[in-house]
């Protein structure tokens, strides 16, 4: 579980960074820069890696305290960012930054909960 913890904390830090950059972009430019979506997809790649590793551990027989909760968190964390990006795909306005920021913050919170329910 140690490696999973490490990936989860990296996700928390990176998601926090994406949320902060979304907030900064909203203040500085009031428009979504193209690189923010790239960063969000990088976050998604990390989350997918975390979910695959977590599900692999569960399938190999090492069960966390609350299996259903853990699986729910893993699946939810994978879905959040793509759905958020899709909802603002044709919109680069300031509020689309709010959507990306909230989604990144949610991924961070869910990742913390994943660590807590291991």
């Amino acid at each position: 579980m140690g490696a999973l913890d490490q990936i989860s904390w990296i996700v928390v830090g990176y998601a926090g960074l994406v949320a902060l950059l979304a907030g900064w972009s909203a203040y500085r430019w009031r428009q979504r820069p193209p690189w923010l979506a790239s960063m969000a997809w990088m976050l998604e790649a990390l989350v997918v890696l975390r979910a695959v590793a977590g599900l692999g551990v569960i399938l190999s027989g090492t069960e966390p305290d609350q299996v259903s909760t853990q699986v729910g968190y893993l699946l939810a964390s994978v879905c959040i960012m793509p759905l958020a990006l899709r909802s603002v795909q044709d919109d680069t306005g300031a509020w689309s930054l709010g959507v990306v920021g909230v989604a990144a913050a949610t991924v961070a919170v869910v990742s913390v909960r994943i660590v807590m329910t291991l």
Partner: protein
Amino acid sequence: MTSPPEQGETEPAPSTPRSGAHQVLLLVYALFTVAAGARSLVQLATKADEAPVAYTLSLLAAVTYALGWLAIRRASEGRTGFAARMLWVELAGVLAVGTVSLIEDDWFPDATVWSDYGIGYGFVPAVLPVAGLLWLRAQDPERAGGGAVTAFRVVAFAEALSWLGLLTGMFFKYVVDAGERGVQVFGPIHGTVFLTYLVVTLLTWRSQRWSLVVAAVALAASVPPFCTVLFEEWARRTGRLGGATSDDARRAPVT
């Protein structure tokens, strides 16, 4: 065949969603629908007999969030009637369940989504309907601009008032040693009002076009006791809470 608009609703706009704050609200409502729904369904399926009232209330909260999502979506298309009612229902639910959970904690062997005004979710459940109502108010061109200022004044005063309650509770807990009931009651209330103040301050920053320094001072005023009232008084005296912005003025009809 389409049904006519409900009473009190404006004419429907084109169905293409506009860019705006509703996008963030829709995301948060969707997240809370899933979070509260999944939580309550798992609890009802695995341990319903432990706290049936609490788990059912959580399921009710999930349904409320789903309806709230629908209401915001309709309002973003110009049909505001359902949202105008639904958001008040949601706020009443959070306040009622939050207050009962503080006064009669024996009724809740396990927490609900709205226990202690949503303390388990960082008080977002209490802030969300307030943010929704402010957004809804901003959709009305005749009331836009002034809504954020009025909300800021009310919430700044409420924040100071909640500090008074919390400090009184701390006095009875630590000085008089008369129990911690006051802190248990006013702690969540202060937390809710504090977060509401932060959200309303951010909206007012945008509405009143404050500088970054003024906004930072406004946010920092929430930390020491009673400073939100001092900031509100200073902002009012220096014309930084002037109501409608230049954008609002441009939207107003020319007579």
